[in-house]
């Protein structure tokens, strides 16, 4: 569950005030809005990468407003994917659970499950620079899910993909949602993505988030 109450964010000369919305447990919410409206700013704030001026952010009922990004338990896929290119695909997947000192056996099992779910088994030993757009997308998704976060945040994850790869990714994202049941916030400006994937649509317009 994600809840934002009266959140105020300032990013340079840009600011957003009184941001209020909530996403229920296991919901797949889509946050839409024009380019430059502040969607990424909101996402970064939920992840703990930007400070909150006022207001509160609750994740699964826990107040995370002042917590570090590491303590928020959020799986985050950024717009540019930001894969670690000094590592292999498998090392990327293992990164989160290893840092969090999860048991080795459970990490191995989780990586195996994710590789199957995302169809990236044959990519595990590859370097990330050699991946296609769709492959990189699935690896970034796997990396965000590997430590079993309570919330998944996807910032325009499909914007750089061609149409056929995007259609494949719709299936992947639906499958992930069905099998993990993770609460998801997906940022996009595509109404097709909203229609295909969303169970809840949020629209950011003139600094206000409204539910459609």
């Amino acid at each position, binding site marked *: 569950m994600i809840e934002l109450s009266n959140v105020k964010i300032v990013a340079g000369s840009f600011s957003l005030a009184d941001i209020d919305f909530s996403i229920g447990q296991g919901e797949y919410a889509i946050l839409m809005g024009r380019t430059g409206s502040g969607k990424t700013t909101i996402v*970064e704030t939920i*992840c*703990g*990468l930007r400070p909150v001026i006022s207001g509160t952010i609750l994740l699964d009922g826990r107040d995370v407003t002042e917590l*570090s*990004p*590491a303590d*928020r338990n*959020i*799986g*985050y896929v*950024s717009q*540019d994917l*930001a*894969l*670690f*290119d*000094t590592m292999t695909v498998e090392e990327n997947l293992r*990164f*989160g659970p290893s*840092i*969090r000192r999860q048991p080795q056996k459970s990490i191995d099992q989780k990586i195996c499950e994710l590789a199957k779910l995302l169809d990236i088994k044959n990519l595990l030993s590859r*370097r990330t*620079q050699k991946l296609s757009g769709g492959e990189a997308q699935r690896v970034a998704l796997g*990396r*965000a899910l590997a*430590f079993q976060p309570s919330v998944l945040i996807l910032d325009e994850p499909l914007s750089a993909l061609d149409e056929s790869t995007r259609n494949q990714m719709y299936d992947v994202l639906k499958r992930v949602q069905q099998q993990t049941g993770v609460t998801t916030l997906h940022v996009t400006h595509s109404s097709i993505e909203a229609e295909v994937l969303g169970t809840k649509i949020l629209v950011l317009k003139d600094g206000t988030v409204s539910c459609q």
Partner: protein
Amino acid sequence: MMTSDRRTQSFWLALTSMMLIYALFIVTLLVTLAAYTSPADLWAALQSREIRFSLFLSLTSCSISSLLSLLVAVPTGYVLARWKIPGAAVIESILDVPIVLPPMVMGLCLLIFFQTTLGQAIDGPLRFTYTACGVVLAQFVIACAFAIRIMRGTFEHLPTRTEEVALTLGCSRWGAFWRISLPSARKGMIAAVTIAWARSLGEFGPILVFAGATRLKTEVLPTTVWLELSAGNLEAAVAVSLLLVIAAMFVLTLVRILGLEVKP
């Protein structure tokens, strides 16, 4: 009318010609230097205990000063690239002073500093003035400024997003720096060490002023060239210069090969 292919060819030809002319000029200088001496002169130079010592001191002091430069340049470059600190412009200007000032003036600054109370307190237990440690310090003060510039550029070109993702995955700031930023900056670090090493090897003025030119004590290869020239021993000066060129080319090539061999 020229075709597109021919225009492209002439573009590359013009630019490559400029590069080749400059490279040829350097090669000509080196060949002239090599032709002026003989294997016998080179061998005679290597037989000299003083020259062997200066070769050893040059290589070790350059290696130490370049590693020390990297140790300072990595955090400094990272802070300058990533953290918008107040007064950054002033700090950057201060860090650039060793690049702008004539090297000999830096040597003079060191010498004067070590005459002050604070300088003498440091010089008491560590002994910098007119010692091999002084040679390293004189090289370090200048080489470090170059290494900082390179590391700053390196970190500026690395995306911040990977570090932010690492933070959300569970890393602390230190963890993200150590596990993500440093491995990604590997090529920049190799470049910084290489430039710092090369710069240190050619350093002469500040070493002469601060550490002196005492044979078998603070004499490095550039000092040897100067000492031999002063004594009118042109053959030895040329032979040592060639030795300097060979050492520099060997180490720089080796570092570049090692740097390229490490897979990203």
